[in-house]
């Protein structure tokens, strides 16, 4: 085989691989749409599920997912912001910075079921938060920490030195610089992180399945110790237990809603990222 033929063959092979990868997303989207759309009816998002998920809507499941996501971001954001500000503004040792960065990456690569197990043992059992939405939010908060940190760190590091020097030259203390330069100038980076973190939390099932969620028995939590129904648990249980096509269709419907939620959050993050770039070039 001549090298030119080999070259052509390689390019063809690589293009097939690329096509395969891009079509995967399309296949998943198409399947979820095809299977999920029939389940959608006008009240799907605002009605409670009935008859153990066979009929009705997914209102409380959607609420449950949103509660866990909101709880997670409210806990995670201040922690992530504070720690990144410390790492970028105060920590001088290069080794220290590298350790922080690497530990974030390891945390990001940890199987989420382990977050669930360790999180449940620590929060649920040791801190006695039990199987509840609080435990779930705490676990998700830990899980999305690296996502938030990476986003915020990127934004802060991309911030032009000019701004920092100008602030310094005006006699601003490090705290004033953080308050009036770093946080406002990195606003879009922080919000991008928030959306990516929310998307990650929304899609997560394993970490919260046995620590925070329930399939039935509860609609909205009435105390800190109540679990919540979520879209993820709803889908999982319905697909495992489904005895008829209507129930299965409900699961696909919930899946479509969840996918749309994640998709929406990711697109928002994407748009804001564009603005962040514009800001950096200002």
């Amino acid at each position, binding site marked *: 085989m001549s090298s030119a033929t080999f070259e052509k063959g390689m390019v063809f092979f690589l293009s097939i691989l690329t096509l395969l990868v891009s079509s995967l997303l399309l296949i998943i989207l198409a399947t979820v749409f095809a299977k999920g759309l029939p389940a959608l009816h006008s009240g799907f998002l605002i009605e409670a599920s009935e008859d153990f998920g066979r009929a009705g809507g997914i209102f409380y499941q959607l609420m449950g997912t949103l509660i866990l996501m909101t709880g997670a971001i409210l806990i995670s954001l201040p922690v992530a912001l504070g720690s990144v500000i410390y790492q970028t503004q105060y920590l001088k040792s290069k080794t220290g910075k590298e350790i922080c960065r690497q530990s974030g990456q390891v945390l990001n690569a940890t199987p989420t079921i382990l977050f669930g197990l360790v999180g449940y043992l620590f929060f649920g059992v040791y801190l006695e938060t039990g199987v509840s939405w609080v435990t779930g939010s705490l676990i998700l908060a830990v899980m999305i920490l690296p996502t938030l940190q990476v986003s915020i760190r990127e934004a802060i590091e991309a911030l032009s030195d000019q701004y920092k020097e100008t602030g310094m*030259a005006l006699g601003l203390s490090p705290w004033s610089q953080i308050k009036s330069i770093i946080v406002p100038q990195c606003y879009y980076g922080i919000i991008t992180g928030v959306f990516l973190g929310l998307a990650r939390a929304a899609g997560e099932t394993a970490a919260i399945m046995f620590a925070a969620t329930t399939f039935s028995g509860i609609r909205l939590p009435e105390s800190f110790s109540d679990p919540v129904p979520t879209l993820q648990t709803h889908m999982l249980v319905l697909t495992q237990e489904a005895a008829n096509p209507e129930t299965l269709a409900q699961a696909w419907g919930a899946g479509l809603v969840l996918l749309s939620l994640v998709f929406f959050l990711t697109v928002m993050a994407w748009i804001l990222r564009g603005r962040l770039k514009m800001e950096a070039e200002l």
Partner: protein
Amino acid sequence: MSPAIQIKNLTVTYGSMKVIDDFSCEVKENSVTAIIGPSGCGKSTLLRSLCRMNDRIAEFHLAGQVLMKGENIYHPDVDVYELRRRVGMIFQKPCVFPKSIFENVLFGVKHRIDKKDYEPLVERVLTEVNLWKEVKDRLKNLATTLSVGQQQRLAIARTLAVGPEILLLDEPTSSLDPESAAAIESLIESLKTHHTILLVTHLHEQAEKVSDNLIFCNIIK
């Protein structure tokens, strides 16, 4: 009367690189001193050392003394933030924040003064830099919409608002057109009445025109 600035045997190194070697000089109050020389000769470093802008650079090391009105600014008891308010620095490329002109002027003093003093201060410093007439009707506009020359004058106004005694100007006209540069040059002469000014420039002509004293870079090296 003790001089505004006294530099005694100043040596500055970055890691193993010596940037300033055993340099001494005195600067009189309310004068303009120009520091000239080719780029990379340490003139910016000298300027930055006078308001401790290099403190955050890990490899930066300084020996010798810098005295302002007889007080060593590198003494451990010195409040570096207060020092930087007394010694203002203007950079080569004007840097305005993506906020209104009004907010930009107040950037360094906003939490330090009363709200009722905002407007008089903004008018005073913008007048001092000859920008008031040009922008008084659009103080709420984004500062980034100003021309580069106007932005540089705004940056000077922002520094003046903090109330410094000494102004350090690091090639303030090098990114400006000739007309804006001339405006800054005449501004420097008028600022001299209340401030001690150190000006880094690579333009001999500019140095001759605005300065009372000249420091040549080869002396620093």
